[in-house]
């Protein structure tokens, strides 16, 4: 079971959260070309290793959290607030 240490609520089970995918992509500005929106929605690195991803604490504080998690070990290294930029381990 993935356990996520919510910066607001403390250590909680994955069952309380809703996954929302890659947190490294940024929504383009209003005048950005369609290509940029395509990349925002579809272009994914899909790394085997550390992944920065959104988890929405839907049954808790209703906050979107930036979680740094390893896609092989499932280790959760950092849980940051939405506006923070967590450090991603090099490997």
């Amino acid at each position, binding site marked *: *079971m993935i356990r996520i240490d919510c910066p607001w609520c403390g250590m909680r089970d*994955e069952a309380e959260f809703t996954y929302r995918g890659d947190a490294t992509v940024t929504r383009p500005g209003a005048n950005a070309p369609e290509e940029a929106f395509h990349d925002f929605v579809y*272009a*994914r*690195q*899909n790394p085997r290793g550390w992944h920065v991803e959104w988890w929405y604490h839907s049954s808790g504080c209703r906050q979107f959290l930036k979680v740094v998690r390893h*896609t092989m070990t*499932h280790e959760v290294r950092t849980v940051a607030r939405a506006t923070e930029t967590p450090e991603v381990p090099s490997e």
Partner: protein
Amino acid sequence: MLEKGPIGLGNTGRNTTIVRSNYLLPQNHHFYEHSLKLWEGLEQDLNYNAMVSQRGVVGLFHSEGAKNAAVRRGNAMRLSGIDAELLDKEQIRAMCPLIDVDNGRFPVMGGLMQRRGGTARHDAVAWGFARAADQRGVDIIQHCEVTGIDVEGGAVVGVQTTRGPIKAKKIGLAVAGNTSRLAQMAGLDVPIESHVLQAFVSEGVKPLVDQVITFGAGHFYISQSDKGGLVFGGGLDGWNTYAQRGNLPVVEHVWSAGVAMMPSLSRLRGLRQWGGVMDMTFDGSHIIGKTPIQGLYMTAGWCYGGFKATPASGWCHAWTIAQDAPHTLNEAHTLDRFRTGRLLDERGNGPFPWMQ
């Protein structure tokens, strides 16, 4: 053919062995119907008993809206010459008395049956294909991991492997679960995420479930193997992973959906649990075709559907490689359809691979 480990131990060896062609969109159901027809003659083609068993695949529905969707799908199949029939509540009860038709949280209204659907013995499929390929002169090189794809001037020229370089003018990727990693070796980002799908088998019991049955009010499907084990599964764990293991929350959902659908499963026991890594695309349909790199082809993005696609996936992939152009069966399954917006979204869940 290069394989990083032994053959048949990736997704081939860790699926729940269902074959069917009951897809909604013509681009999908024509493809899967071609696959199903290949399944029907596969054992004689390969001279290997893959235990293809057309015991019927039925998807239950529990609401008027779901019924309408099932009718739409079944009619789409029938108009394309694919078998489908609508079963009402009483027919479901007669087909499988174990199903709690009336008393559940979401009573069963009926089901969409494809009688030609069924199961096949997954290991035997891998072994049978391997033997047939070998007899046709294919070199199957196991324990040979591709570590790089050499691209020059926008075209592939070969691969680097753990056992040395190999030159090739055309390279086909058939590495579902790891497509992103391989494609990135050629400098290509693909609209795919890797997710784990768990599956389970129960202790063996005397024949109990004849068909492949899919619950419509939760993530659960079940069939029974010839050995007696109930083979079952549900939905994704729902987060990116390359690890072939899942976690308990999904186990809980799948198992409770199982008892909700068939209360008498309650006293049986699960024996084994495993997970396979799925290439999940952003519209839930697969990709077979050319890539922006000359000579690089892929069959990928199988979501949950790879096993049943096996014969047609290989067939279309081979066609595309040989002709350097897609067959009509896979011309819609392009890599660039996400740019053009010509999506093949059967369920309408949106561009969220973990929800597809």
